[in-house]
């Protein structure tokens, strides 16, 4: 029991990200001029789509790879969901099936390119994001149709008991899901091992390549969930609506202490990183800075987070 509990203790990097989040929240409310927990919860509701995407990115990072196609995958989910739904709740099952099917294909393609074709993952996923973007414009002719019915939009617009947005609940459930997968199942332990040292894993009889494919499939499916949640917020199909998630998810994972060498999984850090990005964005909006400032702040955050992590590492070694 004690051993199981010790696995639940969050890593230092996650705690630092959480501390940063608390500090940022203080700044946010001071800039706002009042304390409003409802506003914070609403921010969480809007951050949920990205938060789910980041969980997937964290899984791929754990395997020592990088997925630069999550944004395109989320955009694809939006287009497929809205067009199959066509605004009618009766199409719920085919819409979800088609959307997840598309996500599954993207993940499989990414995983197979990164393992069987031995293409570096970031280039394989960069290429697949280009192909997905081309396919979206080709099939929609640049003006996508369809919409998400109001009934389905309750998953992001309604609140559970008026206290917690449903989208935040979905985020929480998926967070617990990956947490249990990585820390409490044999499959997840093997993934973590294979990410930390693929050669040793292979020598121990762990199918490292298959687990990499699995991580890409899970990542694409989570990016699809992110795209679905985003579609529920916007309610309509639009080209490239999720594209920003690629950079956002990497930034959030990095703030949460992700390591690019693999073998580290910090789900709590990933959540804190997502919320930090989301509140920074709200803060920029509050200070009425131009939208372009978001990119600059994001790039600066990535560099700063990695630089701080590197300096800390050098000090300790």
């Amino acid at each position, binding site marked *: 029991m004690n051993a199981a509990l010790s696995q639940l203790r969050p890593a230092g990097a996650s705690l630092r990200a959480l501390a940063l989040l608390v500090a940022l929240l203080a700044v946010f409310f001071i800039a706002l001029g009042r304390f409003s927990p409802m506003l914070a919860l609403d921010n969480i509701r809007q951050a949920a789509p990205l938060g789910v995407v980041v969980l997937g990115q964290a899984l791929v990072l754990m395997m020592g790879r990088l997925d630069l196609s999550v944004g395109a995958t989320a955009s694809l989910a939006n287009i497929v969901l809205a067009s199959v739904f066509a605004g009618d709740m009766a199409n719920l099952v085919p819409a979800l099936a088609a959307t997840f099917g598309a996500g599954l294909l993207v993940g499989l393609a990414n995983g197979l390119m990164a393992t069987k074709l031995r293409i570096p993952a970031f*280039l394989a996923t960069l290429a697949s994001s280009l192909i997905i973007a081309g396919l979206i414009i080709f099939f929609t002719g640049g003006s996508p149709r369809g919409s998400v019915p109001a009934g389905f939009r309750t998953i992001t617009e309604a609140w559970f008991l008026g206290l917690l947005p449903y989208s935040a609940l979905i985020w929480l459930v998926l967070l617990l899901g990956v947490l249990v997968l990585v820390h409490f199942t044999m499959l997840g332990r093997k993934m973590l091992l294979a990410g930390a040292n693929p050669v040793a894993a292979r020598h121990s009889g762990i199918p490292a390549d298959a687990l990499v494919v699995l991580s890409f499939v899970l990542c694409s499916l989570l990016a699809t969930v992110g795209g679905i949640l985003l579609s529920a917020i916007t309610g309509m199909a639009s080209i490239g609506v999720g594209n920003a998630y690629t950079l956002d998810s990497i930034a959030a994972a990095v703030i949460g202490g992700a390591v690019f060498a693999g073998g580290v999984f910090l789900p709590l850090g990933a959540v804190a990183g997502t919320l930090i990005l989301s509140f920074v964005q709200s803060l920029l909006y509050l200070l009425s800075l131009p939208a372009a400032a978001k990119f600059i702040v994001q790039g600066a955050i990535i560099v700063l987070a*990695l*630089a701080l992590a590197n300096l800390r590492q050098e000090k300790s070694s």
Partner: protein
Amino acid sequence: MPWLKGSIRFNLALGLPALVLALLVALVVGFASEDFLRPGNLGNLVNRIVPLGLVALGEAIVLFAGRIDLSVGSVMSLGTAIMATASAGLGWLAIPLALAAGLSCGLATAAGVVFLRVNPLIMTLATSAIVKGLTLLLLPSPGGEVDYLFYEAFFGMDEPLGLPLYLILAVFLLAFVVLGWSRFGRSLYAVGSDERSAYANGVPIARVDFVVFGLSGLLAAAAGVIMSIRILSGDPPVGDPYTLDAIAAAVLGGVALQGGRGNVLGVLVAVVALVLISNAFNLMEINTNVQAIAKGLIFVLALVFFMRGKAGAVAP
């Protein structure tokens, strides 16, 4: 050619598949379309080769040293934005201004890689975001103006044998000689082949980082300047596809992603091949969206068939 020996000959040979591909495409398109050999089309080809060639050269130089630069597209866009906003007031001085901005972007990337020890892949992704933000602050939407005088001075009458062709040939020849026979050029390959051994043998790694990323930024900005002269305006997203195109050209031209392999002449031939393929699509009047999909597939194929070494060698 006895002076063309050892690793230089080996690296030149890596570009042979690209040469074969370029010749094949040229032959097929030449026979299939009467428009291909018209001076207007040839001039158009050269005009397209120049920006991609400059970006791909910068990317290749970074790859020789075993790094990668994912910010070249954004820096190129920044170049067009600076030209579009500053050339009306500053005239010709806008060009050195844009080049200096590109150089600064590259040096900032190198500073992050050298002093903050951030992985080049992630560092250039971050630079790319920052540069994109700066570009959008400068020019929120496509527009601005670049005077037609610039176009006349640089592209002339769009004839194939003009200033653009001489410029790109001169730049690549210079790079060929410097990378092949100068101390700096060889140290770059040394770092790309084996950074530890290079360091142990006294190669200044930090200086190599500053030079390769600086050159990459400078060349990307130069491509932006030329692009803005071609479209007579600035365009914030215009450079985005060039990052992948540049890497594709380098890989097709025989450059290894893990560094130390390849030659700039191979890259030039690969650029010509890629431009010829896109020209063939245009002459066959294929939908531009299908072209985008085809480009992605060609890129994957290029990586599968021309990539040397294992995946994972260039983590992540």
